[in-house]
């Protein structure tokens, strides 16, 4: 592989924030061997940061230490380098040491978001979920626009079975990134798990609305794909449960009105799922498990 293509690939990884650590490490070592550092100019520092993180990831701490050393020499006292050093500490030292290190940094600059997040991640990793949740709520109260932070909070609540709180956190995610259907899908599934069927079915339908085509004439012929299929599964699940027990439609902590025409919705979802598993997909072959899905959707 030539140096040029390796550099190009690494730059792509950097811009897309991809965590392909093994690949980055191999290509990065190649660049170091061929002395490509000087060719990069100012980019070399971003590359060193990337290589350090990848090296820590694949366990080559000797390489990571070298990179970290040259970064420290170039930028003494930089908060970004401090954060990488913290990650390096986390790799080998016990979590208490890392916590202490982060605590000292936060003492000096209480508004360092990256360090704060690292500390929360350690808290969660070591099982102090309650403390992590408190810290993360505080963090989000300060840095409200951090979508990943809200998703993490929702995830933490969900792992504890607190689906209502999880849903609340997801609502903030929806406010911050209303264009992302995956977040809506997650909220819909959380609402389903929390037992709020009317809300759930409407959010699943929102996902369908966001992800199917805009051309309403050809919609009935075209097969749903990807995330839309999953949303139709959700609709089918909700509609079936409501059809079995109509009382479920009235139980809604969010006081969402029950869906109208539930039976038609059920039929539509069944039909869409059948179409999804009958038509040939992008690879030109019919999806596996067609029989199972057909039996499942036909079951009352």
């Amino acid at each position, binding site marked *: 592989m030539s140096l040029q293509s390796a550099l190009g690939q690494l730059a792509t990884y950097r811009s897309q924030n991809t965590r392909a650590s093994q690949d980055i490490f191999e290509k990065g070592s190649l660049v170091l061997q061929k002395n490509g550092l000087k060719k990069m100019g100012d980019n070399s520092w971003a590359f060193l940061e990337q290589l350090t993180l990848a090296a820590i990831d694949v366990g080559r701490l000797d390489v990571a230490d070298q990179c970290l050393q040259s970064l420290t020499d170039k930028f003494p006292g930089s908060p970004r380098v401090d954060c990488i050093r913290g990650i390096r500490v986390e790799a080998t030292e016990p979590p208490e040491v890392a916590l202490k290190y982060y605590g000292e940094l936060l003492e000096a600059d209480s*508004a360092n978001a990256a360090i704060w997040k690292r500390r929360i991640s350690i808290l969660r990793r070591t099982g102090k979920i309650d403390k992590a949740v408190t810290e993360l709520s505080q963090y989000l109260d300060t840095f*409200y*626009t951090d979508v990943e932070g809200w998703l993490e909070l929702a995830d933490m609540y969900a792992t504890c079975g607190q689906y209502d709180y999880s849903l609340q956190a997801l609502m903030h995610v929806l406010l911050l990134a209303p264009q992302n259907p995956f977040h809506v899908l997650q909220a819909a599934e959380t609402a389903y798990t929390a037992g709020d069927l009317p809300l759930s*079915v409407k959010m699943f*339908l929102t996902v369908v*609305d966001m992800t199917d085509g805009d051309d309403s004439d050809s919609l009935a012929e075209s097969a749903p794909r990807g995330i839309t299929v999953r949303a139709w599964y959700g609709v089918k699940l909700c509609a079936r449960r409501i059809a079995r027990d109509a009382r479920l439609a009235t139980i809604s902590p*969010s006081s969402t009105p029950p869906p109208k025409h539930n039976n*038609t*919705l059920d039929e539509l979802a069944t039909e869409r799922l059948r179409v999804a598993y009958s038509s040939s997909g992008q690879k030109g072959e019919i999806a596996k498990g067609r029989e199972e899905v057909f039996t499942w959707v036909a079951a009352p």
Partner: protein
Amino acid sequence: MSSQVHMSLYLDPQIRDWVLFPITLVMILVGVFRHYVVILLQSTAKKLSRAGIREQRALARSQILRATSANSPIPALYYKAISQNLSEAFKSGTYLKDGPPKGDSASSARNPLSDPAAMDGMMAGMKTQMVMMVPQMVIMGWINFFFQGFVLIKLPFPLTLGFKSMLQRGIETPDMDVRWVSSLSWYFLNFFGLNGLYRLILGGDNSADSSRDMTMSPFAAMGTAQPGQPQDFAKLFKAECDNLEFAEGLYAWAGDEMDLKILRKYGKLPPNSVDD
């Protein structure tokens, strides 16, 4: 009288070598020098404390909520909860950096001169101003003192009489051709015209060009909301409460009629059927 007579002046080449080029060179060098002095003087942006950031960003939260309120991605219960929470927090001043206001202290608009943080910002503006003003004044004095009344150069193209005051400052001869440029005017031409050259030498956002700074005063920035400038957040928060209430009136959940919409989209319901 003599405008028709082609009267030609002969300029001593020494003027070119010892006046025209030095003035230009000095001005370029001063601009470059100024660029680096400004970089030196730039104080690093002061770090905000956690509470400070929270105060500054609190308004963004309600703005995000309001931005989509007419077609909100979240259902009514959650919307109202968030909206009311924010509104109460704004009213009671939870987000204020120094905590909720105590007792009867009328929220006095703080005097910016008494706030050290604001003073810093103003001083930085004054410093760059000084770096700009002082050398320009010195150069102008230098030109006025040594080269007053010098004619430096003849422009290679004709100009109308209107340019006389621009090009022949410091020479009070009504009859001279407009194409002749005086020393002081050459200074001003450089003063306003060197920006392009600086951009070539120093890159896009250099601080060498001084003519740009002429238009702004260190106090001009105070009226506008500049990051780091003090704002009366207590007042801003109060105003935001009204906005929140207004947005709540406009609120509608995007998913409200989604079941009917999807059924219509897939042709299961007639397009404009009135649902029962």
